[in-house]
């Protein structure tokens, strides 16, 4: 059976690329698109996958990450689908990749110019927790009325004494649109600010594409007296690699019951461990 290059038919890819261009032209604005059926279920990264499939060319090198790992079931299956339908090269090294599809992380290696990071997004609307109506949230975005997003953070301070959003922490893009950056940890929010690469965000189930173009101002929402802070891993060392200052997974040693930490970005960890003079 004849199969389309990159699974989707050419018209679908063209439509998604046009919507992507619009998203790049209006940083942070959610562009609706006709999300396609894919051989994976909605909610498993179909938004990101549609972006990747419509952008991938034969000269590309693709990397797929799922919560920092290149080897999880989700990452392996998505990578296999892309490879089976395109024959492009794949890699685990962030620096080698031209197109990176990621779930829940921005890699530790800074993006470089002309690199594209595609993030999978479950809930693209930052105002959804306070406003159920799509019609009204569109009006609120048009009017720059973001008190709902601020109110949610305020309520967390009232309830818990601090802002408790550890992932999907809302950001203001280019001084205009408040955006849900997908469930990346707070730790990754500052990486979006003025970065060299292009960040695209795709929500398949919610049928939205949005973007943070290179060198765009991205500010995490914060009150004057409750400034934005990332998770601190200052006093924590990765048990496997000896790395510090990177985003860590907290694990429990089943034999001793002790808590230990491992760097979340596995490819970065391996690269660091393989360097000459590495700690391990």
């Amino acid at each position: 059976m004849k199969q389309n290059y990159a699974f989707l038919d050419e018209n679908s890819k063209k439509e998604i690329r046009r919507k992507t261009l619009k998203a790049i032209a209006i940083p942070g604005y959610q562009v609706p698109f006709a999300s396609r059926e894919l051989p994976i279920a909605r909610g498993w990264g179909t938004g990101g996958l549609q972006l990747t499939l419509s952008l991938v060319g034969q000269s590309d090198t693709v990397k797929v990450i799922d919560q920092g790992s290149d080897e999880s079931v989700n990452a392996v299956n998505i990578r296999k689908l892309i490879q089976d339908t395109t024959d492009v090269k794949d890699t685990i090294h962030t620096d080698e990749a031209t197109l990176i599809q990621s779930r829940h992380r921005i890699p530790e290696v800074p993006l470089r110019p002309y690199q594209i990071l595609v993030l999978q997004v479950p809930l693209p609307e930052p105002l959804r927790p306070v406003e159920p109506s799509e019609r009204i949230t569109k009006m609120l975005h048009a009017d720059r009325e973001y008190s709902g997003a601020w109110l949610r953070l305020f309520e967390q301070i009232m309830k818990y004494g601090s802002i408790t959003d550890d992932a999907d922490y809302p950001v203001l893009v280019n001084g205009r649109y408040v955006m849900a950056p997908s469930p990346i940890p707070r730790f990754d929010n500052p990486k979006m600010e003025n970065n060299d690469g292009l960040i695209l965000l795709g929500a398949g189930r919610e049928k939205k594409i949005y973007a943070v173009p290179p060198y765009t101002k991205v500010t995490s929402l914060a009150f004057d007296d409750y400034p934005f802070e990332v998770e601190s891993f200052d006093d924590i060392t990765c048990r496997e690699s000896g790395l510090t200052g990177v985003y860590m997974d907290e694990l429990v040693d089943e034999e001793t019951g002790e808590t230990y930490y491992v760097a979340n970005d596995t490819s970065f960890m391996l690269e660091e461990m393989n360097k000459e003079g590495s700690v391990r």
Partner: protein
Amino acid sequence: MSKQGNIALSVKNVSKLYGDGCAYCAAPDATLDKNICPECRTVHACRDVSFDLHNGEILGVVGESGSGKSTLMKMLYFDQEASHGTYHIDDFDSSESSVFGLSGQAKRKIRNEILGMVYQNPVYGLKMDFSSMSNIAEKLIAAGSRNVGEMTGTGDHFLDKVNIPLNRKFDPPANFSGGMQQRVQIAKALSNYPPVLLLDEVTTGLDLSVQADVLELIKEIQREMGISMVVVSHDLAIIRMLCDRTMVMLNGEVIEAGITDQILEDPQHAYTQQLVYSIL
């Protein structure tokens, strides 16, 4: 302070139509079947309503159910669009001849900074699942405040003023009685010291002792803060207690207006006479 003398709000020939209208009902002297056009069945919820609200004045709007009182309030607060007429707010500088013609963003600015609204049903005015403090902060955030300490200070002040125990400020209004919910609404509406407060049937559904508390509170606030108010009610006792001037509405039209004592002691229109004599 008023910029153009002593008029806080000015409304001229405001109408609200549910339907397209026709040449017959567009004529000023057209006879309607109650407020429905006999030719095109368009409902004239408000018809050519005009009034001025003076600074520091409490204006009562009285009439039976369906007379257009709440529709008028919704238009004044931009919850509904007016079909015809002009609306001028003294504290808002605009090149437009009527604030009805402003953008959604400008109307939100007026709602957030100049007007306060207390709805008949607190569900419309409050976020029932957010804490009372956050409900008050919502208005302040919308008006541009980004300092948690200042907002909680203001919240404490107004919750205390409306006799909500401060040890319940983190409780959501869903856990409060109807009277307490109304008082939280009043605290929210007052929190950024708006020059004009709109009160739509604020005591409906409350028991007599709570009604008296809420009315006493409104009087006290008006005395202390000198806020101009429009008070809608179908209860003449409330109008007598609170209002300096009163407008009587019937079938969407203002049929009589004047000093409250004059309206209640010497009603001229047959409907007003019936209303006054049937209640007093």
